[in-house]
């Protein structure tokens, strides 16, 4: 039994490695093809992509991992929600709410509380994200309102709320730019590798990933969430799970993760709140979670991959003149590719299961024939 288990773990690791290589090759091929199609030199583009993302220690620490941090956290938010069968596509709005909360906490309490400002801002961000998810979650539980539609609404409301804040109560004192004043030094996340831009937020994202992995895998609450997502009807009729409450909690925690991403972005990267705080992290998060096949540990990895892609795309635009919007096309193609692979694998799985059952029936029959 242990032998088989060990072998299957080795097989899984090998499969994972092969999948990573296949994904990287697919990304490189897509980038090269799109560069050629848009009249650019594919080798220069790939070179710039590599050097801007994974080519040097500095690129990895200052570009890729910094960019990956909000993607990991929002990716985890989507992973948790989708695992529970909650179609939360409001990570974007929840992230903005978290960013707004962090800026607000600093504006109100910043200098007074000193170093405490950082945990307060992060806590405020997580709470704001959960709060932003609360209305869709409650509407779903109480009235059965589709969260797909209500979270889209909340994304827009968040965008307009930030637009109002940075032109009204939170605008910088000179009142020229639509952004909040730079947050105080003591409210900034510490840099964890000196000489780079890598801040504590990345470490926090890793911790969140580990905790979610453990919680989904090894706790009763995690089991309830997985069961709910796998088969809500079974979860309901088994009677041991309060379906409404479990979905609600997963939804709120998902919002908290996205809100934390926003707070970390403000206190670790931008140091200020403005409308374009997120270049669509909340939407890319769906791709991140999907590539991570809704597994928190893999989602962390896919967050780093997407971080590398986006960081590399910026370098590609800067150094090779290839529009960085190319990254968006690559991301979309990866999603569609994976959806296609998953759809084509389903019949193979069904067929394999039928084969195993037939073989089992054979064995049983033979065994039956041998018994006198």
């Amino acid at each position: 039994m242990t032998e088989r288990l060990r072998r299957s773990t080795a097989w899984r690791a090998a499969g994972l490695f092969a999948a990573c290589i296949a994904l990287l090759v697919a990304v490189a091929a897509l980038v090269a093809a799109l560069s050629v199609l848009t009249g650019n030199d594919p080798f220069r583009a790939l070179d710039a992509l590599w050097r801007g993302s994974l080519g040097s220690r500095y690129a990895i620490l200052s570009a890729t991992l910094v960019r990956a941090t909000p993607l990991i956290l929002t990716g985890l938010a989507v992973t948790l929600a989708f695992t529970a069968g909650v179609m939360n596509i409001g990570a974007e709005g929840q992230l903005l709410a978290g960013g707004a909360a962090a800026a607000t906490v600093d504006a109100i309490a910043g200098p007074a509380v000193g170093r405490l400002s950082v945990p307060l801002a992060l806590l405020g961000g997580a709470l704001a994200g959960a709060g932003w998810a609360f209305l869709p979650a409650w509407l779903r539980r109480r009235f059965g309102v589709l969260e797909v539609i209500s979270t889209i609404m909340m994304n827009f409301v968040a965008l307009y709320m930030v637009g109002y804040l940075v032109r009204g109560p939170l605008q910088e004192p000179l009142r020229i730019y639509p952004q909040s004043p730079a947050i105080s030094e003591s409210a900034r996340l510490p840099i964890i590798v000196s000489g780079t831009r890598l801040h504590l937020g990345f470490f926090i994202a890793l911790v969140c990933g580990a905790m979610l992995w453990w919680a989904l895998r090894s706790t009763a609450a995690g089991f309830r969430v997985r069961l709910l997502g796998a088969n809500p009807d079974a979860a309901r009729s088994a009677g041991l799970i309060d379906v409404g409450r479990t979905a609600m909690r997963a939804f709120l925690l998902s919002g908290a993760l996205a809100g934390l991403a926003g707070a970390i972005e403000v206190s670790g990267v931008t140091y200020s709140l403005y409308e374009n705080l997120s270049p669509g992290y909340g939407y890319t998060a769906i791709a991140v979670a999907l590539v991570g096949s809704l597994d928190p540990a893999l989602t962390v990895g896919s967050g780093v991959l997407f971080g590398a892609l986006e960081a590399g795309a910026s370098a590609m635009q800067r150094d090779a003149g290839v529009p960085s919007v190319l990254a968006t096309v690559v991301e979309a193609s990866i999603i569609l590719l994976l959806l296609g692979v998953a759809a084509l694998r389903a019949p193979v799985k069904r067929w394999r299961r039928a084969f195993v059952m037939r073989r089992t029936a054979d064995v049983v029959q033979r065994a039956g024939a041998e018994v006198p």
Partner: protein
Amino acid sequence: MIDPVAPFLDATVRTATPLALAALGETLVERSGTINIGLEGTIIAGAFGAVAVATAAGVPGAFAAAIAAGVLTAVLLALFIVELRSDAIVTGTAVTLLALGTTGLLYRAMFGTAGVALTIPTAGPVPIPLLSDIPVIGRAFFAQPVTTYVVYGTVPVLAWWLSHTHAGLALRAVGENPAAAATAGISPRRVRWWALCFGGALGGLSGGCLVVAQVGTFAEGMSAGRGFIAIAIVALGRWSPVGVAIASVLFGAASALQFVFQSLGWALPYQLFLALPYILTLLALASVAGRHAAPAALGRR
């Protein structure tokens, strides 16, 4: 001082037109029990289709290309969600990203970097005799580009089609209970293909309308969230064509208000007014009527 009412009404109808086009198509899609979350991508594809051929093919050609580009995104979507049974939300997100990215890339490849002022033929306002002479509302409602009149025509036809034809009833049956519809000999697969393609055509036309009848040029990401707004409008309009038309006007009015404020020099936070229709939609969804208006199969996998 200039009277602010007429420009306000004009801006309302102008803003509402592309929203209504996309939302009417989406109404049909959602009544068939599926959803095009990639509507944003459909609109930007339509806008790009229009600008790509406008100079060579003129205004009618631009509209045709817009429709074709919109249908193309819908076909991609239908391949995944109808044929491969992929998740509609994830697929729709991918289609939006794909269309936003591809149009951005192609636009740069075809017309050079942004900043080049592109001059394309545009569809100007066509005043309808007599009706456009009605005081106050006449010019706002009846001196608009042809796309606005397409909306006026589509609303009653769609409302009638949904409730008085076999095909319309079949579509609604698929949206409420696909299994029962299939038992009655209706193919949910085919119905959803047609619905998605029709939604794609109107979504594409919406993008074409932005380019040819309004802005007169293309910009990366110029759909600016209209696809998502249209999805909101469908919910606020309770999945009925007439309701959707009214909801579009409401969303149009909310964003037209900011022009009024600017012209009057009021320093009111117009973001609050922009957010208002979304909050209203949330309330409408939670209301007793809103809860039961959604097609039953919507959002089920």
